[in-house]
């Protein structure tokens, strides 16, 4: 069974109050997310990522098209029982404490008092805010609220979690812990659907990604399918490169720049590098580092988004 499936999911909003015009914020979207995979939805601001999640959560209604979650239509109570959702920049009832919020949400899931107490304790511990369990949320920092947001998304031990910008507001340590938590969820068989601006996190965590730009799906697939995994260049740093040695390897490199005693040489491919290496070492140069460069998700993303902007 597919965890998420959308067919022609479209959303228009009326813009302007006097003479409202229709603005399409999400063009017909076809997506498929398999159960158990970690899926990343990426795109610049205004690409339609949050709108997609809001449609899936039943917070807004599609203009056209349909979607199914865990094989059932949107808004189905059985589905709601099995999913978790972290909204973008979450805001919770600030008159409650962290523990009270989790308890309240646990009640809505029909958890017993013991289950709620146990789950609240576990989750507050897991997201690292157990010390603030009984502090009113109005005193929480942005990072603490984000951590509580994750905890509330997991209160029902969901089969599928939707995370909108889960790393937002977190410090580097928090981001690392969040990555760890997402990996843990994946390892325990939970399907994770998340939107993020932080492409390196998406690249590390996701099995598959989809790129949205200006409300349109640009590309979707496994990372290995959409990113060119072939070598783009070999970046080499050497010391003691004499002008004579430089002239001997001329023609094999693409670019050479000198920074003090070090020289940064960019070779277009492996054979060029392998041909030049013995010459460099034999000529007295000292090898500092060798770095094979492949396309990253970020390179790919910017290329796709820039291509979209030019169209």
């Amino acid at each position, binding site marked *: 069974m597919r965890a998420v499936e959308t067919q022609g999911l479209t959303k228009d*909003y009326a813009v302007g109050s006097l003479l409202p015009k229709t603005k399409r914020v999400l063009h017909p979207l076809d997506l498929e997310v398999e159960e158990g995979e970690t899926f990343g939805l990426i795109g610049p601001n205004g690409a339609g990522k949050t709108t997609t999640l809001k449609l899936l959560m039943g917070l807004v209604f599609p203009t056209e098209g349909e979607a199914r979650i865990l094989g059932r239509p949107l808004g189905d*109570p059985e589905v709601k029982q099995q*999913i978790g959702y972290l909204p973008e920049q979450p805001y919770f009832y600030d008159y409650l404490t962290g523990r009270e919020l989790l308890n309240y949400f646990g009640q809505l899931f029909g958890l017993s008092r013991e289950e709620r107490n146990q789950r609240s304790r576990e989750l507050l511990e897991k997201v690292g805010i157990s010390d603030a369990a009984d502090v009113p949320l109005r005193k929480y920092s942005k990072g603490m609220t984000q951590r509580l947001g994750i905890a509330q998304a997991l209160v029902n031990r969901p089969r599928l979690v939707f995370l909108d910008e889960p790393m937002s507001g977190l410090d580097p340590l928090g981001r690392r812990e969040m990555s760890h938590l997402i990996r843990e969820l994946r390892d325990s068989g939970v399907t994770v659907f998340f939107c993020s601006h932080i492409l390196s996190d998406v690249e590390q965590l996701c099995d598959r990604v989809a790129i949205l730009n200006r409300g349109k799906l640009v590309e979707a697939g496994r990372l290995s399918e959409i990113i060119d995994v072939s070598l783009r260049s070999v970046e080499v740093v050497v010391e003691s490169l004499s002008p004579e040695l430089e002239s001997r390897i001329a023609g094999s490199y693409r670019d050479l720049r000198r920074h003090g005693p070090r020289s940064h040489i960019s070779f277009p491919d492996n054979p060029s590098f392998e041909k030049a290496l013995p010459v460099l070492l034999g000529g007295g140069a000292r090898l500092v580092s060798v770095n094979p460069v492949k396309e990253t998700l970020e390179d790919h993303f910017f290329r796709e988004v820039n291509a979209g902007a030019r169209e």
Partner: protein
Amino acid sequence: MNAVAETRPISTGSRVEGARTLRKIGYVALNTYRETVRDKVLYNLVLFALLMIGSSYVLGAISVYQEIKVIKDLGLAAISVFGMVIAIFIGIGLVSKEMEKRTLYSVLPKPISRSQFLLGKYFGLCLTLLVNVAVMTVGLYVLLFLMKHPFDPALLKAIFLIYLKLTLLVAVAILFSTFTSSTLAGLFAGFVYVAGYFSSDLKNLESVVASAFLPQLTRVLYYVLPNFKNFDVKAAVVAGDRVPWSQLSWATAYAAIYIALLLVASCWIFRKRNLK
């Protein structure tokens, strides 16, 4: 036999589902109650109302032979006015504030329908009002006791009707809260309260106005707006006149029907609302 066996699980299932629905409404109601009782504004209002009830003692003292009447009159007025302020000011924010602050985004994806959520908010505020009205009532009775006035159960009839009026006003406020901002909802609910209070005067307007359009408009308003005067027996109670039980029953039925219609309309609007 088979038919019975087949129908039993369905009725049991629907009963279980019904109990689950009521529980969820109850959880939202209790959370709403918690929200309001943790709001300092509420305490200020209740304290102010109690002070006003207390100050009626001073006014009563300068009204020779009328002190008990003045205390009852001002006491009931305080319960009504402060209850109304709480009903409107908290009622209008019940849904719109949740939309503006985006707290709804984390609640509605949970297994609760929008109607259950809305009804929970409504009953939560009604519970808050019940507690506040009870506190103010106790304040009034304590003052009367200190004045050595015997316990007057007729006051409870007036207070019961005030409470009904407040629950109706919350339903009006929540309706506006589902489709407009807190500020506009406050204005609209205030207008409905004032116009509803003078509803019977609206009906009589057609006999004194020459215009053709205005009487039609006032007639429509007369039938659409709730008549808040139905719940006002303050003058009769203070004067010591008897308030028949039939009047209370009729007012209760009137409020129940009006509230039900308003809540159905609110749920219908809220179910269709895009939470952008």
